[in-house]
């Protein structure tokens, strides 16, 4: 009974990252298409096979992963399904999810949606049914917790303020539509007034979107060590986190892939990434892949420690490190550091901490989780469209959509509240 219009859904079905391996499940008519887009081929049914996944937008490598193609109806959900077993780092998972999300017709699954589809196709067993009430209980717990932390936080106050402003503007638009025959309701020029007032709201919402996210707090600040081969990245990484995490060798190109090392320094979480040495003439194909990833990682990094030439800095805000100062001397630009002698290490750490403190949400700041961030971004989009419009009907429609995003964020329904605003703001009624 799946209609052709039913979306294809995906979700992380393994435990919370980071983990050794993560499993992403896709269910729906486009599961096969999604795999073909990512891996450039569709493996034979029910046979695990290794593939290099790429972002179709720019060909950037995402991960080397196991893929599985499971045509329906003999699957858990009864629909076509696919599985991706990838590396369990947060960045990898997030990158693959983002690519899936961008594919037309694909979206993240709602809570319980896989179970629901399984059930609709008559493919669910009792265990799964029990699992569902656990999920519900967990959801309630989560909501309670989220509600609690929201209630205490600035974020909820900020959201409440947005909600008030949005309700008032929406009420203004709706009053002009539903009660244009009333004396008390302004009509002509109302579009401009709404547009002006939306501008203030838009700026406010943007500023929250620009603020650091909660994931940073939980997952750590992403620090990338980058530079040409043999610049001493791995050694420096080991010195920073105090253990032998990366493979150190004198042969250029040892660190073929990215290595992620989580570490806590001074109570804050970091994820240090050691990247493949940046060489343009990559020794082999796999190393070339590593270099691609290094570039991608650098774009997403919060802080870059650059161990190369000053004029080759990948980003202007990178910290230039004159590494191996004991061996190569100090008359180079950058902070002289030696992992061997310990020279400059405390200066480097101090610099790192200062940068980090600017990135982490301050006490009392609100930090958005991914779900919240997505909703706020959508909210912001609707407000942008509404601002550009002159047709009151469309303005009202976009404000309605904006309200429904806020409803999802707060779990409240807004139509009645909007009407409250309307009737308390304007004297209506003949």
């Amino acid at each position, binding site marked *: 009974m799946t209609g052709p219009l039913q979306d294809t859904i995906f979700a992380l079905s393994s435990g919370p990252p980071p983990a050794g391996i993560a499993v992403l499940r896709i269910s729906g008519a486009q599961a096969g298409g999604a795999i073909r887009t990512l891996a450039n081929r569709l493996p034979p049914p029910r046979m695990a096979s290794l593939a290099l996944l790429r972002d179709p937008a720019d060909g950037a490598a995402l991960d080397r992963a196991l893929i599985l193609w499971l045509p329906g109806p003999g699957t858990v959900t009864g629909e076509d399904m696919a599985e991706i077993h990838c590396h369990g780092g947060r960045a990898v998972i997030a990158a693959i999810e983002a690519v899936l999300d961008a594919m037309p017709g694909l979206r993240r699954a709602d809570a319980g949606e896989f179970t629901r589809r399984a059930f609709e196709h008559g493919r669910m067993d009792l265990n799964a049914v029990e699992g569902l009430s656990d999920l*519900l209980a967990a959801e309630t717990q989560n909501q309670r917790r989220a509600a609690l932390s929201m209630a205490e936080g600035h974020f909820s106050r900020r959201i409440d303020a947005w909600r008030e402003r949005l309700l008032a503007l929406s009420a203004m638009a709706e009053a002009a539509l539903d009660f244009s025959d009333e004396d008390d309701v302004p009509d002509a020029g109302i579009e401009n007034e709404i547009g002006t007032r939306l501008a203030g709201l838009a700026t406010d919402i943007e500023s929250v979107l620009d603020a650091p996210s909660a994931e940073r707090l939980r997952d750590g600040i992403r620090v990338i060590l980058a530079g040409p081969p043999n610049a001493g990245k791995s050694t420096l990484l080991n010195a920073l986190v105090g253990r032998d995490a990366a493979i150190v060798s004198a042969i250029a190109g040892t660190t073929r892939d990215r290595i992620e090392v989580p570490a806590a320094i001074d109570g804050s979480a970091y994820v240090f990434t050691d990247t493949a040495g940046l060489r343009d003439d990559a020794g082999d194909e796999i190393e070339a892949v590593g270099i691609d990833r290094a570039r991608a990682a650098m774009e997403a990094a919060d802080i870059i420690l650059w161990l190369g030439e000053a004029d080759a800095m990948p980003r202007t805000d990178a910290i230039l490190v004159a590494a191996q100062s004991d061996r190569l001397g100090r008359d180079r630009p950058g902070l002289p550091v030696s992992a061997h002698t310990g020279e400059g290490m405390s200066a480097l750490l101090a610099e790192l901490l200062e940068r980090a403190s600017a990135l982490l949400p301050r006490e009392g700041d609100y930090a958005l989780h991914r779900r919240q961030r997505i909703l706020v971004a959508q909210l912001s989009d609707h407000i942008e469209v509404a601002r550009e419009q002159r047709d009151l*009907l469309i303005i009202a429609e976009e404000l309605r959509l904006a309200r429904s995003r806020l409803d999802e964020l707060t779990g409240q329904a807004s139509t009645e509240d909007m009407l409250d605003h309307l009737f308390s703001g304007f004297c209506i009624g003949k």
Partner: protein
Amino acid sequence: MPVRYDVIVVGGGHAGCEAAAAAARKGAKVALLTFDRNTVGAMSCNPAIGGLGKGHLVREVDALDGLMGRAADAAAIHYRMLNSSKGAAVQGPRVQADRSRYRAAIHGLLDQQVGLTIVEGEAHELLLDRGRTSGIRLSDGQTLEARAVVLATGTFLGGKLFCGDAQDAGGRIGERAATRLGQQLRKLDLPIARLKTGTPPRIDGRTIDWARLETQPSDDGTWTMSPVTPARILPQLACAITRTNDRTHQIIRDGLGRSPLFSGAIEGRGPRYCPSIEDKVLRFGDRDGHQIFLEPEGLDSPLVYPNGISTSLPEDVQRAMIRTMTGLEQAEIVVAGYAVEYDYVDPRALTSSLELRALPGLFCAGQINGTTGYEEAAAQGLVAGVNAAAHALSQPSMILDRASSYIGVMIDDLVLQGVTEPYRMLTARAEYRLRLRADNAETRLGPVGLEHGIVGPDRARRMDQRKHWRSEIEAALSRSMTATEMARAGAFVRQDGVRRTLWEWARFPEVSRSLLTSFAPVLDKAPQDVTDEQLEDAHYAPYLERQEAEVAALRRDERVHIPADVDFRGVGGLSNEMIERLEAARPDTLAAAGRIRGITPAALAAILVHARRAAA
């Protein structure tokens, strides 16, 4: 000797008349039972039909071959298209109707209807046979038998009238209340509560100084309430406008102590959007005046309805306050304004076919369900009538969903969320507002009416013609043109080199209707309303498509039925609040459950699983 019918409709208001006529159109043998034949089709309050949101309802009732639109045209003495400068989706056709001609038109339509009998009398008692509806006993002892009954008793159940400190039992001024029936319904353990509404005094127009007042003429268009009415019929009258002022407000403030609204005599809640003048003055004390429309009640009637001054102050206060206003210095009140408080049934006890879940065969429509307004009543009446007939004749019910119509939005709101004040239709309540326009009601609902056998042959022929023209227009607009070609033809569109169909070009403001017509002459040949409708669709197409996707998702969940006897307490993991709301509304589809406030996707999945397991 009991008389047998298929359907008995109690009440000759707007809900009752539509219910009886619709049930009869469907082929049922129908009795329309009411206190007094002469009040059938009476307008209790404002002599106007339509307006914003309400005009949509009238067109929808009309598309299902209901009475209201045609009767409104037969009685219209003033036409106004509200929001005429805005998009068609929020344009609201409204007419002032001659009260007695409206009533006469309704009588005429009912008389023509085969299978419908008007019975005078008071419904005294609902007859039940093993928990199912079996008929009505009248106060004179006579019984009428039927498998289905529609209650459309308006403000009459436990009705109480207030004018100053005077109180009286009654459903409308000069009419008695339905006390016995009200008591019986309470005893049947139906969820019943109180609401209130009010009406302004009526003024003798001959005592108004019209010359001093600004007037508002009828608009000069040619549109009619029902597209079936070929042209406007009656001469058109103007309305006049006056205002309240500081002196009016002072008199009201001084009189508040004698208003039942503030003495605590009235416990029911009134509508926020239709406040009494007492409320307005109190809540909006900073306003220096409120506009009052003086609306003529008919061509041969001297009565004038002062719109905007609903009140239950004592009559002497009403007189003094009226006379502070320009043009009304000498005005005489013919009937004083009053408030009415009445019982309503919590509509969450109803299914979407408007049948009481607890009493199969008993349907409710109109003000008894917590709504207010003629149009709201008529729309529910039509749905309840069709479904009562369907029940009696063992046919499938007619369920209209939120995506199909304002009627669907209203019924869904009522049966799922219930009411806290008298419910009135507003376009803001319709999330698919851009698709649900007054101008496309026939396209949306005509086929539904046909399917349920309530649309007559004339209407069916009209629908065929419109369908033919629509496809002609679609074909003509599928022709594609480049930006360059458009510019050559005189439309200053951006030269982006894109090839678009005329349908797509139609949403660009630079592309005029005459230019489109030059490429697609059929736009001129087709009836204007069909062309207008198509071009409006084209204009909002991107939004309509997005809503289309939302609707597809809605309809998917609409197909998943939740059994009526499902035990929500047995669904693991639901919170108490969720359970309470689900139990009050008893959603019959998964989609409906999802619309109840606070129900999450995971909760829905659990309900679904539980329901399927129970069914297995």
